[in-house]
């Protein structure tokens, strides 16, 4: 990944009769990067991808591909290729002919086509299936064909629209890693669309979290997970505890927040003003139990009523309710052997370093 811009989206907007699918989107995609659009269904991620591919015309804004504005270019003239969600393999063509489809249209010399197709087939490990028709392949194999058919054209950017959505969990996990390795080997820029946050965290160099046509946050996986900038991102990515509060002191390098009539200190500089309502967000794995609430050093402590525990193998999920009635989930390793009775008052605490502050609303409405 270097600093050369492969795609620039400038004020990109798409409106369908009444609804705004994509709202004034500005984004740079760099050469060789694995970028993921992540968001719930209807957030505009697929629409954005389809605009880049040329299947949808933007209502406003520009798409600059490799330095050139491609507004007037039909999909067949754009130097991008798409891997479709339902594979969209040509049922009347063999696997080899499916993969060769794009190269044949480019009128390349026959030996060149043959070599490139062979290479692509090896890359996705489909050597035994080249003569078969798509209907004779399994879902995972079809997916590989779809990928081979796209990358064989050596596009500037490969667009992938939830390509693993139809596969079972185990195969999906395998394919995630395979795709990631493939992307690193080929050095092609990938733009990947998914609603699966775990998939996004596993594969991406950068993640663009989208909600209702807007970009909520752009960042590397760790940033998105560790320091979500909005309540929507905190809530959508992984599990999290959201505790409502009000800013009482805005100090240097820390912010003090009042919640449930107690004060909590959170490290970091935030743009929130004193008196502003916001949300403290703590991941379930960053909370510990404590016997003595009075003696935990600089940790932030709270007391809750224990509700239930859920055994999930290596971990136990402890579910509590805090004085404000918010559900608190605490993930602890099973081997710690912590056990509580429903209805019991339990103290818990977290480090000021291990919490972030986000806005009070659940995303823009």
């Amino acid at each position, binding site marked *: 990944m270097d600093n050369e811009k492969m795609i620039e989206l400038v004020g990109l907007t798409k409106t369908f009769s009444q609804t705004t699918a994509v709202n004034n989107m500005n984004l740079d995609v760099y050469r060789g990067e694995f970028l993921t659009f992540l968001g719930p269904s209807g957030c505009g991620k697929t629409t954005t991808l389809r605009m880049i*591919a*040329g*299947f949808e015309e933007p209502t406003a804004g520009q798409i600059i591909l490799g330095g050139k504005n491609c507004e007037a270019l*039909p*999909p*067949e003239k754009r130097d*991008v*290729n*798409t891997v*479709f*969600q*339902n594979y*969209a*393999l*040509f*049922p*009347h063509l063999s696997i080899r002919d499916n993969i060769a*489809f*794009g190269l044949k*249209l*480019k009128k390349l010399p026959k030996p060149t086509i043959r070599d490139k197709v062979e290479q692509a087939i090896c890359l996705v490990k489909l050597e035994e299936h080249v003569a078969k*028709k*798509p*209907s004779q392949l399994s879902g995972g194999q079809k997916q590989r064909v779809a990928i081979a*058919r*796209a990358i064989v*054209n050596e596009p500037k950017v490969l667009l992938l629209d939830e390509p693993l959505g139809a596969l079972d969990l185990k195969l999906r996990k395998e394919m995630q890693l395979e795709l990631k390795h493939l992307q690193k080997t080929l050095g092609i820029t990938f733009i990947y669309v998914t609603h699966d946050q775990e998939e996004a965290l596993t594969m991406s160099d950068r993640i663009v979290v989208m909600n209702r046509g807007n970009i909520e946050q752009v960042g590397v996986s760790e940033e998105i997970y560790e320091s979500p900038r909005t309540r929507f991102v905190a809530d959508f990515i992984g599990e999290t505890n959201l505790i409502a509060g009000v800013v009482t002191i805005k100090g240097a390098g820390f912010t003090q927040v009042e919640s449930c009539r107690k004060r909590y200190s959170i490290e970091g500089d935030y743009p929130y003003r004193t008196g502003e309502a916001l949300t403290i967000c703590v991941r379930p794995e960053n909370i510990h139990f404590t016997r003595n609430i009075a003696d935990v050093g600089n940790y932030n402590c709270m007391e809750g009523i224990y509700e239930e525990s859920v055994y999930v193998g290596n971990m136990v999920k402890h579910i509590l309710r805090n004085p404000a009635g918010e559900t608190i989930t605490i993930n602890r390793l099973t081997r710690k052997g912590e056990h509580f009775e429903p209805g019991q008052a339990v103290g818990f605490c977290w480090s000021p370093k291990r919490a972030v502050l986000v806005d009070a609303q659940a995303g823009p409405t």
Partner: protein
Amino acid sequence: MKNQSSFKKRRLSVMGMTIGPMTAWTVLFFVFPLAYIVSLSFCGRDAYGGIVYAFTLKNYQTLAKPVYMQVLGKTLRMSLIVTCFVTLIAYPYAAIAARAGKRVQNALIAGIMVPFWTNALLRIYAIMNITSANGLINTFLLGLGLVKEPLQILYTDFAVMFGMVYTMTPLMVMPLYANLQKIDGSLLEAGRDLGASPAALFLKVIFPLSIPGIVSGVILVYIPSMFSFYIADALGGGKSIIIGNVISNQFSTSKNWPFGAALAVLVMGLSTLLILAKNLLTKKLDY
């Protein structure tokens, strides 16, 4: 043991109730007439048109005569031309209907189905009216002074083929429409995405995928074209004779049922071959 036999009996009665009526219907109205026609084709005929129930191959020897073979050849040729024109008209129509919006789609399908449900003879008489010497077309052309004498349109091969194309077009549109509509839109997007211009997309994706629809349509049009007689009767006026007319004549004016039956068996044999060929082809195209 007793249980089992009563179970068998019950199963038989259930079978009788369910598939019984259908079997009876098929035997009565399909197997029996077919067997009758085939056996009739091996019978003789007396001087007054009566049937002589004695085995003979005379009918088949007669139909091998050049005069009948010529009519058969002309029929096959005309049916082929009709099928070609029907395909040329029906394909774009079906393609537009398949990709159009809901309202245009309904209008286009109604446009083809409503005439199809109207009595065929009525429509043929309408064509006669329009094309006759003092019909709509000639009145118009004479009125404009474009021709001095009325054009001979009615009672020509052209009129017969026109009538057949007109009648058969819906039979091609429907299977093609069903086929084209079934083509997944994402395949078309994939084609464009991989660099296909609209023309290349048609040649490399849409057309190959629509071949099963064309084949079904060809069968649905070609076979009725071979058998049709009322269109040639009405629009050909006895001047344009195809095999359907000959067969219908044997059963009416000529009163030679056995020979008519032999001709019918011949045409049936040809259509059976066509259907077998179609099945072979569709099996090969099955993906």
